[in-house]
């Protein structure tokens, strides 16, 4: 895993700030509790710390209450560790950014409560951040690609997005379950997970190595939108008849992955042709998947455009990306007080306008 650069030159247009701005970002929308700290001076952003703790279910999927408990129990530790690494004290921070959605209500509430408290106690502004926007913006910053076709895939989201007139426009998205959820649910139901990832590889990828054949499975692209639920049902049925034959189960895994990724690729290609953007940017938790990265990279090569997949350290949920969008909003004067921090479980990324977008 290549470590990413600690210093980046801002590649979006923001009003100039006087002196140094330091932002602390809190992420808690799903299974990860994370705190990130960064500072901004002139046009440089410096990452100071990025600490996370992940809730890992012992069986089944994410239980919102258990994840909530994990966040409550680890918040103090993670916050302290992030402050230690950054070398800052809480009173040095200029504003607290927090992810207010989209995500699981009980989990978001932990971050929101902490942010409200810090803001009130230190009498500093607090900034509500959209979790999806944060994934995209940190990807844009690190990749240096200013205006790409954005492929955002995670456990809770699957969408292909472009920027237009200060807003994100969703060109295509899943109509039912997201890609990460498809892979997780399949792995769970067939008994190859948890754990969902082994040495950074998803259980479905590990299982795919056992097989070699390709079996046709339902492929559902509706215009630019995707539907994975029929694919999941068909793959589970195929897996049931394959078990306990390891090789045949491997074939199912391989075909499931191939079909699902090809669907996403088709929508990405369509968007690329439609919008003529300069590159493809892959962000979100599933961006850590090696096979998907390779596929999208060769799509980019095929069309002669740039490609960037965010590295696992910032592809997954983390506090740093929240701090970064917090910084952009802070520079544009989007700051508020604790009583205005509201949990927004269904906060869509195309709901609000963002002044720094092209």
């Amino acid at each position: 895993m290549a470590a990413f650069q600690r210093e980046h030159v801002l590649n979006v247009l923001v009003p100039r700030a006087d002196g140094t701005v330091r932002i602390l970002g809190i992420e808690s929308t799903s299974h990860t509790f994370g705190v990130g700290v960064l500072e901004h001076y002139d046009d440089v952003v410096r990452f100071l710390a990025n600490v996370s703790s992940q809730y890992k279910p012992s069986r089944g999927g994410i239980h919102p209450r258990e994840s909530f408990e994990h966040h409550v129990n680890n918040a103090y530790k993670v916050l302290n560790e992030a402050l230690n690494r950054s070398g800052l004290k809480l009173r040095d921070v200029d504003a607290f950014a927090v992810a207010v959605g989209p995500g699981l209500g009980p989990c978001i509430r932990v971050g929101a409560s902490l942010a409200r408290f810090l803001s009130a106690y230190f009498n500093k502004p607090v900034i509500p951040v959209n979790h999806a926007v944060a994934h995209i913006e940190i990807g844009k910053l690190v990749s240096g690609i200013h205006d790409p076709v954005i492929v955002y895939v995670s456990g809770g989201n699957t969408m292909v997005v472009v920027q237009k007139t200060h807003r994100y426009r969703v060109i295509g998205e899943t109509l039912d379950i997201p890609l990460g959820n498809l892979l997780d649910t399949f792995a769970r139901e067939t008994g190859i997970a948890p754990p969902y990832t082994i040495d950074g590889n998803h259980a479905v990828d590990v299982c795919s190595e056992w097989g070699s054949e390709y079996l046709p499975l339902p492929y559902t692209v509706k215009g630019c939108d995707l539907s994975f639920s029929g694919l999941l049902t068909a793959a589970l049925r195929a897996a049931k008849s394959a078990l306990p034959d390891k090789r045949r189960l491997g074939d199912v895994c391989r075909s499931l992955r191939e079909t699902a990724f090809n669907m996403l690729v088709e929508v990405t290609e369509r968007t690329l042709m439609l919008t003529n953007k300069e590159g493809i940017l892959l962000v979100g938790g599933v961006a850590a998947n090696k096979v998907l990265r390779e596929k999208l990279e060769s799509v980019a090569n095929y069309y002669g455009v740039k490609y960037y997949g965010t590295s696992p350290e910032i592809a997954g949920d983390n506090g740093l990306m929240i701090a970064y969008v917090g910084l952009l909003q802070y520079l544009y004067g989007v700051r508020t007080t604790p009583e205005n921090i509201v949990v927004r479980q269904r906060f869509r990324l195309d709901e609000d306008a963002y002044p720094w977008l092209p």
Partner: protein
Amino acid sequence: MVALTRPVPVSRGAEAEIYLVDFFGVRAVVKKRVSKPYRNPLFDKVFIQSRTRVEARVLSELYNAGLRVPAVLLVDDENGVIVMEYIKGIRASQVFDSLDGNALVSIAGEVGRFAAQMHNMKIYHGDFTLANLLLSDHGVVVIDFGLAGYSTDIEEYAIDLHLMSRSAYVADPEKAKSFTEHVLEAYSGSYKGNAEEVIKRMREISIRGRYVDRELRKTVMRERYIE
């Protein structure tokens, strides 16, 4: 295969390359689906073959029924090639925002009737947008049946209507409402099944994406449940 006079694509889509050729003295369009290096070879083959076959079949059935689509001249499903009639016209998406009221109503009428007649034949288009409507001297011609298919599920029909209304909204939010209303009016007049049901499903689809406003979704789902 016929020797193509000039194998340089005039346009390249995500899925296929388009060539303009002289086909036995007739101006024709060749649509060639191309293999992609990033797809599993078997997937690639099955995918290209099935899409080509369905597209050719749908086109010829609609053409034979008298609907305005390009005539199919030759099909080579092994190689993913369809040769079809060349249609002179302009894409509706390019001129939508400059259309006057009368033109808008007449186009909407044609679009609505086309959709209804197509759906009456259990065929859906799959990418029914303004960009796939050619405004020709002989009226509206519908092209690109690359995502088309056969289904009796009103869901697919509703998606066609939804895509058309969404693409009108993208092209010109001001004109979209009246355009969509006229499309649906013409559709209701020609669709043999229960048009109201399809239109209702279409409204449902538009609120289906992830994290759509909860209150709106609740209201629609509640109405559905009560019925």
